[in-house]
């Protein structure tokens, strides 16, 4: 399972929440920079393996205690790739080829972690890393707008979502807004996922919250601070309590958002507008 966005940006939180509510087990999570959603999946017992380049909420909160707890005890395997290498694994799959050549990871110990093979350029003989294509069974993505045919548009930085969508077998998308096909055709240059690559689409305003969505709402850093303070005090139990409160208890996404409250959401919207100068 691949999760779109990156770290606390455009994380498909509504989809991750639903996945947790369905009490899935035995999953492998592939995400380049893994944030709170990775901790949720670990504590809920949903993931056995995380394929990533980095995992933490962000520098100010230091090394993830949840990561340390689960990986150092051997309960979750952390398969580490460089950021680019993992990006190229999605891109190889998106392009429909079994590998892509790259210079990155050469000479480092990372190359052995995922079993990356090297090869010789058939023209010059130069050594290259051949990163293997990663075809996720399912991709979870969150976008700014989409039409009823599944054509999706993203504002701001695109992260790797287009590659992930093309790479995955089944693609589930939540969107901040559903627009008419006319609107898609008015700005075709903004479309990053074509409808034929999308399997299911759900309207989910604030669908990444408390993570950010470019131009729409900033990540709720205060919420992260509160969350990490609880972990500092009580360890994984704090995350289990958090899941009870935010994931299992509220029956709908609307009920979930109510836990944050309209004022908080409006504040994060205002901050986002300020930052993008809109």
């Amino acid at each position, binding site marked *: 399972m691949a999760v779109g966005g*990156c*770290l*606390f*940006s455009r994380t498909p939180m509504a989809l991750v929440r639903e996945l947790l509510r369905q009490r899935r087990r035995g999953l492998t999570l592939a995400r*380049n*920079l893994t944030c709170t959603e990775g901790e949720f999946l670990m504590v809920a017992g949903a993931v056995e393996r995380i394929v*990533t*380049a*980095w*995992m933490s909420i*962000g*520098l*100010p909160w230091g*090394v*993830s205690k949840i*990561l*340390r707890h689960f*990986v*150092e005890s*051997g309960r979750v*395997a*952390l398969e*580490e*790739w*460089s*950021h*680019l*290498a993992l*990006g*190229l694994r999605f*891109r190889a799959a998106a392009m429909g080829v079994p590998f892509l050549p*790259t*210079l*990155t*990871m*050469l*000479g*480092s*110990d*990372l190359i052995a972690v995922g079993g990356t093979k*090297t090869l010789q350029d058939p023209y010059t003989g*130069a*050594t290259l*890393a051949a990163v293997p294509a990663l075809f996720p069974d399912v991709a979870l993505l969150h976008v700014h707008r989409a039409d009823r045919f599944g054509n999706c548009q993203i504002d*701001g*930085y*695109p*992260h*790797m979502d*287009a*590659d992930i969508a093309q790479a995955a077998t089944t693609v589930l998308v939540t969107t901040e807004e559903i627009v008419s096909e006319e609107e898609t055709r008015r700005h075709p240059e903004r479309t990053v996922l074509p409808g034929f690559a999308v399997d299911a689409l759900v309207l989910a305003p604030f669908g990444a919250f408390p993570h*950010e969505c*470019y*131009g729409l709402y*900033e990540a709720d*850093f205060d919420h992260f601070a509160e969350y990490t303070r609880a972990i500092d005090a009580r360890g994984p139990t704090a995350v289990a309590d958090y899941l009870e409160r935010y994931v299992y208890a509220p029956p709908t996404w609307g009920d979930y958002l109510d836990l944050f409250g309209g004022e908080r959401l409006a504040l994060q919207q205002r901050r*986002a507008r300020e*930052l*993008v*100068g809109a």
Partner: protein
Amino acid sequence: MTAAELLAVVAARELRDDTTVFAGVGVPLLAAALARARHAPRLTLVIEGGIIGPEIAPGRLPISTNEMRAGRRATMLPGITDAFLFAQRGFVDVGFMGGAQIDRYGNINTSVLGTDYWNPKVRLPGTGGANDIASLCREVIIVTPHERRRFVERVDFVTSPAWLRGDGSRRAAGLLFGGVSRVVTTLGILGFDPDSRRMRIEAVHPGVSVATVRAHTGFELVEAAHVAVTAPPSEEELEALRALDPERRFLG
């Protein structure tokens, strides 16, 4: 003046105008923003969130490479993979980043402490883009607090390759260019002996002795023929720096 302030000011001076720098968040990005605000107005920042040419707003320092604060007033938003590919193609002059553990050949570990990757004593956050920056930029400058536990004889795990074993092994591994040229620390500036690729003391900060640098380093350092003393941060430099981080999120 805090140690982080000293580090940021000295690191900023390493950047030249009209170049491109791939900067990690924290002190490296702060130093790059300082360089831009002072002597290098045409310095182009590249941030691994797929962001090119942003202008970091005072008081709005990003804490991640993938957020609106990092993308503010960017000139281009090519996506993460393509941002790194600019480096692989040779467009990025300097990689500018920190590191948890560093060895005498400049190799960095941000993955695991302990000798068994799959059963680590301490699991660190991981490479993020550090391996890519270290592998693909034309030159890499490390910015780090100078602590004995960080400067180790041999890193437990080579997350980000510098000169590997110092014997041409970087080139032999297939990395066509780049390598760590400088390590800017809270005590001084270190380079690498061009032959052995061993870390070398090149400058100390005012009031710091070579002996102190050695005492805070877990391996034997080469010493340059002439060890310079860095100019102390000026009032103007500190003022510009403090304006960037008024909440002192990274300045301590």
